[in-house]
């Protein structure tokens, strides 16, 4: 069986309403090219909506790098680089919002420190 037609993709967008408008569409279109079922693809979109909304609240003047890797059984989404502590704030804000969508729907959530002292938030959906 051949691999996915789109293995990696990136979106760089200012946090705010444009991110809220574009990031879920970006994730939806890549989920369609992954092995995720329809329900999980829909949940990937819910996660992306939560992430973009939290970033719009927490980082109104920043730009967000979203990198997506289509893996064997789903998607790996990498957000950042972000200032140290910001990924934890995103997760905390998501939890405080009452939904906790990110941790509830992702298969794995982890924060990856970079050599530059900045951090990446990695979300895996399978």
């Amino acid at each position, binding site marked *: 069986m051949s691999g996915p*037609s*789109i*293995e*990696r*993709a*990136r*979106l*760089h*967008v*200012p946090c*705010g*309403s*444009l991110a809220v*408008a*574009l990031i879920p*569409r*970006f994730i*939806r*279109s*890549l989920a369609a*090219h992954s092995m995720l079922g329809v329900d999980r693809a829909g949940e990937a979109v819910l996660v992306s909506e939560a992430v973009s909304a939290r970033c719009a609240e927490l980082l109104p003047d920043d*730009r967000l790098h979203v990198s997506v890797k289509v893996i064997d059984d789903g998607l790996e989404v990498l957000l950042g680089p972000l200032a140290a502590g910001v990924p934890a704030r995103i997760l905390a804000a998501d939890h405080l919002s009452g939904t906790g969508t990110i941790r509830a729907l992702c298969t794995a959530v982890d924060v990856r420190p970079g050599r530059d002292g900045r951090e990446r938030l990695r979300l895996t959906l399978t």
Partner: protein
Amino acid sequence: MPGRLIVVDGPTTFDLTLPAHPDAITCVRHVLEGLESEWGVSREQLDDILIATVEACTNVVLHAYRDRPPGLLEVHGGMDGDTPVVAVRDHGIGMRPRTDSPGLGVGLPLIGALTSELHFGRSIDGVHEVRMRFAGGEA
């Protein structure tokens, strides 16, 4: 004018990077569908932007890497005042006339008809670029 876009890092500007594969074109179209309210363009204007951008992306997939393994397809967009601007870039050989084209040859005339300004060239980082400006304001 060389360079990527006149507007860079503005609140309306985005950069999208994908492999130059036919499936990427549907992804570009789906993402750009979200611009209507964000850019304040009418549905008719957005349709022009989508058609021209998809045509430019198709040209990258079909022609820009014809002598080498497929590389990247980049789409950059933003508003220059009230004028939508989209640049489609490739790291291959750009769009050159070819006698053995698998297409119908209507892509570039169509892009020209839908844009108010159209530039082909290399940006300052050496990447081939098609830059399209569209009529601004309410249609």
